[in-house]
């Protein structure tokens, strides 16, 4: 990622808006995503969070890991709750009840909260055009409840409710393309990102927050527990997802696509999948089929990015 080579980790905001002592699993890339996104957004942020891993690990009464104003209400409604926060603040500032201030409103949820149960509220909030950022922390299953499949679980992945077996390949449906659903709302900003590319992630979070209107950021968040990989390889696997074309990094700004990163040499999908426990049962034919499906979507994004 040449354009980010000017960055250095040491130039990143040193402030931690999320405190240690949170109870995320070892090697959790999802909590890393939250940490990095908050660094990009800064202190003047109000966050509504869906029920899920990030909520549970950060807020066991009487403790909290949050150093920004934070609200958890229910599983499916963080986008509606943040709509209320934004509307309330907007009205109060306009009426002079509280001083004017630029505040970033952000809602976060896992892939279940986003692509399944919270789809309606998210669509509503995007369509109404509240000035907020929605972040989907996609670890590709309901990890908090014990690795059940969601509509964001990829084809072929074995989960506790889409187990691989004699008559099952595991998840037999394709991963729901949430970023494309967000694009269909004609909002000013949609992007995909991954914690393994931290500068890209932070820059996208920042750009999304600076937009007027609704923005959607889809973050692939590697889950060592659910993907059945060693915790130290969480960053590596995010990289493999991107380098194999399984998870293209791109932005759609006011409808205009641009690929954020084009791997110089595309690595085989097998390198990404084969060592993950959730794909252990797949044959070479299966892997080939998955690669074909992934390439189709990747090429589509490339074409959209190149076309005017």
């Amino acid at each position, binding site marked *: 990622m040449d354009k980010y080579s000017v960055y250095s980790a040491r130039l990143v905001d040193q402030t931690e808006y999320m405190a240690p002592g949170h109870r995320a699993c070892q090697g959790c890339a999802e909590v890393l995503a939250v940490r990095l996104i908050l660094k990009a957004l800064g202190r003047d942020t109000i966050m509504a969070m869906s029920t899920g891993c990030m909520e549970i690990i950060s807020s066991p009464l009487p403790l909290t890991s949050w150093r920004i104003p934070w609200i958890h209400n229910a599983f499916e409604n963080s986008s509606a709750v943040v709509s209320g926060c934004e*509307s309330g603040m907007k009205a109060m500032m306009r009426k002079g009840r509280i001083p004017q201030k630029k505040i970033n409103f952000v809602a976060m949820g896992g892939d279940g909260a986003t692509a399944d149960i919270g789809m309606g509220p998210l669509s509503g909030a995007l369509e109404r055009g509240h000035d907020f950022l929605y972040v989907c922390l996609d670890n590709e299953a309901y990890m908090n409840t014990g690795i059940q499949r969601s509509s964001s679980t990829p084809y072929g992945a074995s989960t506790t409710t889409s187990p691989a077996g004699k008559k099952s390949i595991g998840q037999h449906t394709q991963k729901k393309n949430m970023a494309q659903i967000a694009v269909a709302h004609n909002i000013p900003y949609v992007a995909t990102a991954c914690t393994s590319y931290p500068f890209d992630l932070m820059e996208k979070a920042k750009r999304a927050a600076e937009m007027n209107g609704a923005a959607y950021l889809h973050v692939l968040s590697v889950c060592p527990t659910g993907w059945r990989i060693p915790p130290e390889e969480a960053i590596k696997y995010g990289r493999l997802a991107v380098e194999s074309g399984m998870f293209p990094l791109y932005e759609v700004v006011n409808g205009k696509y641009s690929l954020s990163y084009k791997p110089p040499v595309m690595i085989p999908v097998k390198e990404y999948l084969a060592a993950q426990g959730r794909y252990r049962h797949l044959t070479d034919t299966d892997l080939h089929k998955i690669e074909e499906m992934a390439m189709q979507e990747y090429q589509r994004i490339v074409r959209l990015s190149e076309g005017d």
Partner: protein
Amino acid sequence: MSEIGKGRKGIEVSIAMADAVAQADVDVIAAYPITPQTHIVEHLADIVANGELDAEFVPVESEHSAMSVCCGSAAVGARTFTSTSSQGLALMSEIFIIAAAMRLPMVMALANRSLSSPLSIWNDHTDVMMVRDAGWIHFFVENGQEAYDGIFNAFRMSEDPGVMLPVAVNLDGFIMTHMVEPVEYVDGELIKKYLPEFKMKNALHPDNPVSMGCFAMPEIYTEAQMSREVGIKDAYPTIVKAWDEWGALTGRHYKPIETYRTDDADYCIITMGSFGETAMEVADMLREEGEKVGVVKIRLWRPFPMEEFRKSVLGKKYLIVLDRAISFGSQGGPVAMELRSALYGQKDAPVVVNYVAGLAGRDVSRKDFRNIILEGKKKAVSGHTDGFTLYGLRG
């Protein structure tokens, strides 16, 4: 502040309520259409569109999101209003409960309507009874004036720093929402005096970061529930004070329990909601026939005004309790169950006879009231007081 103006108007109750919400200068209104509350939010949409009220009107995609938006809005300290009915309340019930548990102040006009199935848009109390235990403050109004006044009273109760609870103003769907009635409006000066600006102590703001809605391990969940229980019980004096002060300012006095001709009554009919006015008329008629009957009207449903209720009925021979919902498989309607439990073991406790009537808008006329009262008396005298009677049932 909106300039809706004062004076007496003949006006649809929904519109009067919406005007009150505008006069209360709300910041956020979350709205989703459902009969019969729709006129309230339609009129609010008009008021906002015309610039008479500076507020965010959030036309959400479901009632679930309506209540979620209200939670977010209340959490940042904005004055918040919504309205719903029936299936809408059922859909939002998950968040309805959370709103009370998180102590988020807001006001809802709850236009009471039956629940499906069979689908019916008409009025009874099955919707509100579904959320009886949610921890909201619930009161019932029985005419247009009470509905209008109730909005100001509800905001005053809800936003009190010692209360911090959502409040539902219950009004009978259609019977009240779509009725044109005379309503005396109050002016901005009076509202200013009565309803201070909402200042929330721990509102979400970057200058004072807090965490709301943390989860509880078994070691602490019990304590959180006790805090809620004490919270709603302790709200009681503030509720009474909110009505007393309103009475002092407007001359319109409201009490948790209202009584009519009960002082020398042998027995009473008990109602909640718009049936109260019919009950009073019928009591007058029966009095002329020599029946020593009085009327007890429950205005405050939660927190339940136990002492006031007992005071109003202890020493009477029997109570005929009119419910507008069934608690399936139980001993009766929710109101009767509440009252039986309030009277159990009390000295001089009256016998309770329970009728369920007026389900899904079925008319309960003066004649029906008369039948219920006189039949009920017979049942009480003959000791047939178990369970409940579904009035007017065929077959």
